[in-house]
């Protein structure tokens, strides 16, 4: 017959709990989105200023007697950063060309080559360096910090950084010839 409709308080999860659940869910989504974005982002892009990093050098590959090298100390010079590994067959295709380019540009004093040895073992790396007669600065990417910063997708990859520390070009895969290396360095020296 008659039913008085008195608004009853809403039943369910209290507000504070709802807020926590939503914050947790949104946080989870943000983490997933950032991960996906990072995966799709690819390597660092030309135009970006490269942050300073330190590369410990193998014995016999030191620069000016120093056992490690800092990118920040190389401002004013063109820096060619080559990621490689002894187990990487495509790296062998460009090893001789890189060494040849280094011998050409070393006397100018305006270009520095850095070999970053990615996920490698030192004995095998030394065999590789000796096999191809590589003399420019080389060292291991300890804890893969440098390769993670550059977000490399594999080896070989080469990054050309100009005198102001700005990334100017990224080479994915081996260089087909020494001309291809010169084509990236020469414009930066003009």
């Amino acid at each position, binding site marked *: 017959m*008659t*039913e*008085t409709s*008195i608004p*009853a*308080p809403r*039943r*369910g*999860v*209290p507000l504070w*709990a709802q807020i*926590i*659940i939503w914050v947790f869910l949104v946080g989870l989504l943000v983490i997933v989105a950032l991960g996906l974005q990072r995966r799709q982002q690819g390597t660092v892009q030309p135009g970006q200023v490269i942050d300073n990093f330190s590369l410990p050098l193998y014995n016999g590959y030191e620069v000016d007697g120093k056992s490690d090298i800092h990118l920040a100390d190389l401002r004013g010079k063109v820096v060619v950063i080559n990621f490689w*590994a*002894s*187990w990487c067959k495509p790296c062998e295709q460009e090893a001789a060309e890189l060494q040849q380019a280094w011998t050409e540009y070393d006397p100018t004093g305006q270009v520095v080559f850095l070999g970053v040895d990615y*996920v*490698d*073992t030192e*004995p*095998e790396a030394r065999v590789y360096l000796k096999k191809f007669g590589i003399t420019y600065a080389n060292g*291991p990417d*300890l*804890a*893969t*910090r440098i390769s*993670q910063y550059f977000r490399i997708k594999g080896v070989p990859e080469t990054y050309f950084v100009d005198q102001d520390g700005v990334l100017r070009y990224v080479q994915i895969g081996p260089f087909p010839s020494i001309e291809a290396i010169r084509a990236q360095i020469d414009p930066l020296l003009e």
Partner: protein
Amino acid sequence: MCQQKFLRVTYYKLLLGAIAALALSFLSSVALAQGPTPTDDEVNRIAKQLYCPVCESTPLDACPTEACRQWRDLIRTMLAEGKSEAEIKQYFVDHYGVRVLAEPPNRLATYLIPAIAILLGALLLFRGFQMWMKPSKARVAVKTAQTSAPDPYVARLEEELKKQK
């Protein structure tokens, strides 16, 4: 004269014997320091606890790539040098990062944060079910009021309607 020659030969024989004994003892001590060559099982016992960053999702003991073969060789070399399992794993973490470990390092936060999250979730679920199962106090109060004492206004209205009829 002959006796002198005999003594000299004996002296040289003894000298050579002493040198040979010294050389043998030195070689055996080197061999003992290096230890026997580790077996594949010994290498794989450590390798299966590691993941090479190049071959994601494949443990080192089962990975067929050249990079992983080199890593296994390195483990074998380190075992032969007398390095412990913990020392070898630490070397790999230092050189290739913590992500090479199959299990995260035993840090308090590694286990504490998921445990807290699970407890918090369980508590929220419990509270939620508790609220859903419990009948609303207000609705119960209204129903009780309706059954125990009818509304006087409604009663009077019904009475007036009867009179008009």
